[in-house]
């Protein structure tokens, strides 16, 4: 009888631990898709933004082309690694573009530009927060895969530790930015 209870308890625990791992793995996949959605949204925004500002910014050709080229590279990237490299180039390029836009007061009068800028700002933040959320779940999953005794189940059922999303080094040094040019303090 006691033996039976122990067996049932162990089986129940295995089922529970297995399901928890599956749920975490799905959360990791889902969090990754959230990042992907935002990266795609950024791809869609870039041509509109370039179109809107290039009339004003004749002298910033280099910055503009850098962003456009990085986007083209990201869209046509053959594998994940090169795509992520291109994405972080986009982030750097857009950061630079936003900074030089400060030098063009005419842009602040253009409602369309302001609207695109807000959209881009929120997309950049979404990417940063989605990445942060992704890394949080990866931490959860990896911890569970490594700690005893869940690691026995993880290794038997082939759960693999997920990889953290690491940005480019220069990107990591930069804190989340407020790209909006409005200073709405009343």
């Amino acid at each position, binding site marked *: 009888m006691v033996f039976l209870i122990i067996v049932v308890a162990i089986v129940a625990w295995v089922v529970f631990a297995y399901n928890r791992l599956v749920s975490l793995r799905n959360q990791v996949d889902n*969090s990754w898709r959230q990042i992907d959605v935002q990266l795609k949204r950024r791809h869609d925004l870039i041509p509109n933004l370039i179109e809107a500002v290039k009339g004003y910014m004749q002298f910033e050709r280099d910055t503009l082309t850098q962003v456009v080229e990085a986007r083209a590279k990201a869209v046509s990237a053959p594998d994940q690694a090169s795509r992520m490299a291109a994405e972080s180039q986009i982030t750097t390029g857009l950061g630079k573009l936003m900074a030089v836009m400060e030098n063009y007061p005419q842009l602040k009068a253009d409602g369309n530009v302001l*609207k695109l800028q807000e959209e881009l700002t*929120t997309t950049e933040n*979404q990417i940063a927060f*989605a990445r942060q959320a992704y890394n949080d*779940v990866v931490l959860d999953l990896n911890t569970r895969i490594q700690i005893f005794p869940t690691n026995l189940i993880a290794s038997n059922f082939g759960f693999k530790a997920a990889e953290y999303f690491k940005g480019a080094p220069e990107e990591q040094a930069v*804190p*989340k930015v407020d790209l909006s040019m409005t200073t*709405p303090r009343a």
Partner: protein
Amino acid sequence: MASSNFRSLEATNRRETAVLVVAFMLLFGALGLGLDFAARDIAIIDGQLIGFPVLTIAALVFAGIESIVSYYSGASLVLLSVHARPLTPDTPKHQMVLDVISEMATAARMPAPKPYLIDDQSPNAFATGRDPAHSVICVTQGLVDQMDREELQGVIGHEMSHVADYDIRTMMMIAVMVGGIAMLSDFVYRWMFFGGFGARGRSNSGRDNQAAVLITVAVIVLAALAPIFSQLLAMAVSRQREYLADASSVEFTRNPRALLRALEHIAKIESPLKQGTAGTAHLFIVNPREGIREDSEGFLANLFSTHPPLGRRIARLQALLGAAGAGTLDAQADADTSASS
């Protein structure tokens, strides 16, 4: 690490909500029973209960219906009572608020709450709803006008944390129950002084009369104290959650400066919220009522406040900002480990 924190908070909140509903039903039942005795439609004669406790049943049914209604439409009731309307992207600043809500939802790994707006110049915000999928975040026009993007992130992050750990459910039930208890207490007074008070003529012995008077006094005292106690409960329950939500906001934004700047700004502003009623005060990020926002401390000031002193909340955030790695709060440790990962 962070998500398991929220899970345990969620479990606590589920339990507390259940306890609250039971306590609420018991209070109503007790008052109903007292009224039944006072109105003499039931009596205990020779150890036998005679009569039908119609008022007890009515009170219990009322409490039951109110609990169910507040669970499913408490958010709409709260929004109605503060005159909130849906927030639409009609101005760039409103668009920014919508964007920030969606950003913080991503950071918290939660569905985005429905955005609402109160037309009031006092900067404030609250979140409510029965669970994250049915949650709302409500901001005042004053908050929208006076906060920049970073400060908004801090405030909305604070509200998102109330959503994520189910504080919103507990606080919403409390809001509606405080209202229900005030209504019941009012009803008992009207009943006692203008109605049923011994009106039914059932001849009783002197001893029974004495008992009836005692019960009547007990009912009056209970009815008088219930609103005060329910207020104190709302305050106690909400106070301890505010520090926690501040810490979680920092965990979401990874930026203690955001909420710190917002609270410092709000601390300078004196104007109270016009729609801030006693029943909903505990929902807001800072106490919306006049005269109780000052940084008075001590037992009494603590007992009668829905929020910890703003000065102390600011001090804690400053500690987070200043002492990096000192680990004064759990969230600091959390934010550090996750940020470096």
